[in-house]
């Protein structure tokens, strides 16, 4: 079957509208910026609301969130939720952060849906521990990602 490409802004404004109503929304993920935890073009994520009347919770460190920053919709992980601007970075990004305001953070990944596998809760003790180690090794991230792409996932993203 043909793949249907929908303009990002239009799709996401719909997604945000539904999140505001308190709905859970599943979307496909693109790109490599959340490697190795989320694989773009293969995984989908289930989002719960962080905005509007439907918001069920506030943002915590380690949450993977959908937000808007510099005119783009992005799915990355919260490093520091304490300030006026939230500090966010992709797991697969060696350097640089995003700093959206609270109102621009719309949803939180509840589960990662991988083809042919059971949905994954990214916040179990074990997975958060792996993420913390991954964060500690950030100075080496560039090399680890290169290695990861070469060994674990060859053929991806040329």
């Amino acid at each position, binding site marked *: 079957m043909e793949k249907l490409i*929908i303009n990002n802004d239009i799709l996401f404004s719909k997604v945000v509208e539904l999140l505001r109503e308190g*709905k859970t929304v599943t979307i496909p993920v693109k790109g490599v910026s959340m490697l190795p935890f989320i694989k773009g073009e293969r995984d989908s994520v289930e989002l719960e609301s962080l905005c509007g009347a439907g918001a069920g919770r506030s943002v915590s460190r380690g949450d993977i969130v959908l937000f808007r920053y510099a005119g783009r919709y992005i799915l990355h992980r919260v490093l520091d939720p304490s300030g006026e601007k939230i500090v966010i970075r992709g797991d697969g990004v060696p350097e640089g952060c995003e700093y959206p305001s609270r109102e621009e953070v719309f949803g939180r990944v509840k589960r990662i849906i991988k083809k042919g596998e059971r949905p994954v809760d990214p916040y179990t003790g074990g997975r958060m521990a792996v993420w913390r180690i991954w964060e500690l090794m950030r100075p080496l991230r560039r090399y680890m990602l290169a290695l990861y792409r070469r060994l674990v996932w060859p053929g991806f993203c040329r």
Partner: protein
Amino acid sequence: MKIKKGFVLRTICGQNVISGEGLDQVNFSKLISLNDTATFLWKAAQEGDFTEEALVSRLLDEYEVEKEVAEKDIHAMISQWRELGLVED
């Protein structure tokens, strides 16, 4: 036969698409795109129980097509809907 519960027709970016939705769940990772004719037929089918013959006559009322062509196309479309799990008996 009828269309299963939980499928919603939406217009996104000028495209008619069907998404699977539960009470509080919307799934955009699997969208089914419909052309104008299929959208017309989907709406007709959504009115309740329907048969292939009923859809053929709706199509003939609305569009200028030959009966054999309409029958063949609708049969193919409904087989596809079945394959995708959109309809039940």
